[in-house]
């Protein structure tokens, strides 16, 4: 029999991570049919799948390599992002195991959804074509809508899913409309071709194209939860199961930023003067609203939601800087943010019990003297998010700020550092409760091993990325 040959433009080896992960995700679905109530096997398969994905990502050599008529790319940016995605999905799965058991979430498709979502993230980070970006965003979003509402019996979870779905669908509409306008005015959906087209100064002033850009910004703005398109974030973060919240705050957001960066830094760098102001104001608004909003919160998940809005503001600076330093700082920031965020949500999970999640910041009173190591880990994560040395968050912020300073965006950087100062207040507030107040009630923390492991990984990574960032920076700055 003759072998079936793929058309030449399709390079399946370049696509290996997507294929591998999809196969494993389907395997999880099938095994779940026969597995009964024990989900351990599913977790195992998922983790192996993620590991294989990460390995298969490096199968394509040399890079950059293209596939599907230049709409899919394997380059340093996408490889690094695939590593971030697999790490964050693995951590999310590890966090989920004990949480799901405690909260009685028995759905086996939970793990499959996380894997499919990761497939979408990989597509997003590797696509150089608007169509592919849309595909990626839809895969990611649909998985997340389901994941947010996976606690079917829980009202908050349902509300979160519905809100997320409605606003997400709305945002997708904007995005799609923006893409069509861009296609209509440039004649292509391919980012490189668009970049070539807009080199022509006359094309740049086309109102349709400008309108398309604005709509794209709105669409992406929704996906990364930046102000004024952030309204869904606090409710969804609060209502979704905690491991899903952590997952949403890291993976899909990183993927959206990857696409955001590709579109604006690779397709439209020539038109920077038209979108720079708009993006800068979105960044500034995100920082201010995120930080000021976080100060008011008494619920730790909501506080982290607002804090992630403000972080979206900082990360947007990397997009605005649009230089190579911007790209590598984006990578480093997302990696540092991933470890820190999973660590912090791991602790949030540890403090909860069935039916009583202990999500108020007050619940942390006096933690330092009952569980000093956990409180210390929490402090490390909070200080890292605040951007204090010697933790990963500081290096990440330093990186992004330096990318912006190199582009001469001094005013933006000054606003960003002042916002960092505001953020100290609410991050320290948790430290105040942990160290400076007396415990109100007995802590009944169930120190479950997998969650503890995630926290431990988080601490080690946050500290070592902060003190010895050299090798990762060298990798990121390729």
């Amino acid at each position, binding site marked *: 029999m003759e072998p079936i040959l793929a058309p030449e433009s399709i390079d399946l080896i370049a696509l290996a991570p997507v294929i591998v992960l999809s196969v494993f995700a389907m395997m999880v679905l099938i095994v779940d049919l026969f597995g009964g109530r024990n989900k351990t096997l599913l977790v195992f398969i998922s983790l192996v799948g993620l590991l294989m994905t990460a390995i298969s990502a490096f199968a394509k050599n040399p890079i950059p390599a293209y596939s599907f008529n230049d709409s899919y790319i394997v380059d340093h940016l996408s490889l690094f992002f695939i590593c971030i995605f697999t790490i964050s999905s693995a951590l999310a799965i590890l966090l989920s195991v004990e949480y799901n058991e405690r909260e009685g979430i028995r759905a086996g498709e939970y793990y499959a959804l996380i894997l499919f979502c990761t497939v979408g993230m990989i597509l997003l980070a590797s696509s150089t074509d608007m169509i592919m970006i849309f595909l990626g965003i839809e895969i990611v979003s649909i998985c997340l809508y389901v994941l947010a509402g996976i606690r079917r019996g829980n009202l908050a979870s349902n509300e979160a899913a519905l809100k997320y779905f409605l606003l997400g669908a709305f945002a997708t509409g904007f995005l799609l409309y923006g893409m069509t306008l861009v296609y209509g005015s440039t004649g292509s959906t391919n980012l490189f071709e668009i970049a070539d087209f807009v080199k022509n100064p006359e094309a740049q002033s086309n109102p349709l194209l400008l309108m398309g850009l604005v709509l794209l910004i709105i669409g992406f703005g929704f996906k990364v939860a930046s102000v004024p398109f952030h309204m869904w974030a606090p409710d969804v973060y609060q209502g979704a199961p905690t491991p899903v919240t952590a997952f949403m705050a890291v993976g899909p957001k990183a993927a959206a930023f990857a696409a955001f960066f590709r579109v604006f830094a690779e397709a439209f760098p020539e038109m920077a003067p038209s979108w720079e102001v708009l993006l800068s104001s979105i960044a500034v608004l995100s920082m201010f609203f995120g930080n000021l909003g976080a100060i008011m919160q008494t619920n730790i998940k909501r506080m982290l939601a607002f804090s992630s809005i403000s972080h979206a503001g900082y990360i947007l600076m990397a997009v605005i800087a649009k230089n190579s330093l911007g790209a590598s700082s984006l990578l480093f920031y997302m990696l540092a943010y991933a470890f820190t965020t999973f660590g912090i949500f791991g602790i949030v999970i540890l403090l909860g019990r069935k039916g009583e999640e202990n999500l108020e910041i007050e619940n942390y009173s006096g933690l330092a003297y009952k569980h000093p190591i956990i409180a210390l880990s929490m402090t490390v994560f909070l200080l890292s998010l605040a951007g204090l040395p010697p933790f990963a968050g500081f290096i990440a912020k*330093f990186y992004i700020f330096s990318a912006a300073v190199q582009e001469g965006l001094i005013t933006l950087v000054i606003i960003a550092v002042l916002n960092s100062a505001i953020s100290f*207040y609410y991050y320290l507030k948790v430290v105040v409760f942990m160290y400076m107040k007396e415990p109100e009630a007995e802590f009944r923390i169930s120190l479950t091993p997998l969650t503890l492991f995630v926290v431990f990984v988080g601490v080690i990574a946050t500290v070592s990325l902060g003190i010895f960032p050299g090798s990762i920076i*060298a990798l990121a700055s390729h």
Partner: protein
Amino acid sequence: MFLTFITFLPLAGALFLVFMPKESVAAIKQTALAVAVADFLLSLLLWTNFDNTTHKMQFELNVPWIEAWGINYHIGLDGISLLLYVMTTFLTMICVLASWDINKHMREYMIAMLTLSTGMLGVFISLDLFMFYVFWEFQLVPMYLIVGVWGGPRRIYASIKFFLFTAVGSLLMLVAILWIYFYIQETTGVATADILYITEHLDAPLGTQKWLWMAFFLAFAIKVPMFPFHTWLPDAHVEAPTAGSVILAGVLLKMGTYGFLRFNLPFFPQASYEFVPMVAWLAIIGIIYGALVAMVQEDLKKLVAYSSVSHLGFVMLGIFALNPYGIQGALIQNINHGISTGALFLLVGVVYDRRHTRLISEFGGLAKIMPKYTICFMIAALSSIGLPGMNGFVGEFLVLLGIFQVNGLWAACATSGVILAACYILWMFQRVMFLELKNPKNADLKDMNTREMLTVVPLLILIFWIGLYPKPFMDTFDASVTHLVSKVSPDNFRPKKEHHDNDHNDKHNDKQNEKHGEHARLITPTEMASLNHRLQMPALTKE
């Protein structure tokens, strides 16, 4: 390597304490003390091996840290940082001893104290801007915890205020650091944050220099603290535990003045010169305002805290006199303030431990029942006023001498601060120690015990040592100050017209013309000679 070892020894000690059971309080205290003492003794070795004759960095170590950015782990000590370094280890030792009776969470307290020590030592040895910033921010956290956990009733408010004030200032400095990094990269092609390299090669236009200068100024002025950025200080001091106050006054504030000498002056000499009047007036306002506010305080600790604002004004004035006397005076006054204010805080802590109040009106007549205490307090108080024969006099005299050469009016205003200091200190002393023993609660107060004497007496010895024979201290920074002054002396920037008024100008007329149009020039041989001549004669320093 030796310097690295001494710097990180306290951190290692803190890590060791983590693994000790928290019930064995005595063992924890002894371990912490042993680490602190060892660290102090080792740092004395640095002093004895220090070469006084050069301004160059010593005990240097330079290894790559983040190679992709050209950032190095570059450390070293020179005359400006050596004494501050030794004082840090010294005060850490005293503070561990002074914290013997902390009544809660002893293990965590000692961990914070030792970590803080490493953070502070790191600030003084960093020769890379990035590394400096890391240590500068890092030491905030343990200090924040010390104030916030072991402090007084309003500790949470005070600790957050302390943290936010300092953080805002230093974040703007971060932007300036980034800017310098890229500017250096652009102009010299080297990606580096090395302080020595930048000092050598940074040559920004005056307008830019001014902006950068202000960013650094804000960070350091908040730390010093200069008027009007001082409001966090009284709160932090009043709420901090005794040892926290000692460290705060003795070392943390010095990081601000150190910053001016290490960054503002050598990086932006011309901008520094332009800003002299502003800094001088802020310093003078600080001196007088601090003294006047201190005078009306009812709380002993607050009084000492405001006296710090006043004393640090002298230090700033000395630095911005931009001449050898002023800077030497500022450096020695830095040390003096750490010693005498540290001693005062310790002594206030002694009565606070006994009476749990610091209100002046609660006391009176203590001299009759606590003679040892009264003598110690008197020595520290007189040193704070600047009585001749004690350390305060040497520093203040040099500062005033330096500033007088610049502007007589400033010197006159600053001198009034000395008089006001005598007013508030002596008045307070009178109300606490003399008068009649009216308050029955004070009747059976015990005098200082051996441990308390042990914490205070070394400081009192230093007070007399520096007061009577400051040479060993002054010698350490002579070369560094001369070098610094040669770089920042206002003579480098004065418009050429002024030189015509100088008496020795005739001989150098030709040379002056040649140099016309140059902004920064090297010091001329004649000026060098007169400088040397002046340096020969500080009657106080060289006997």
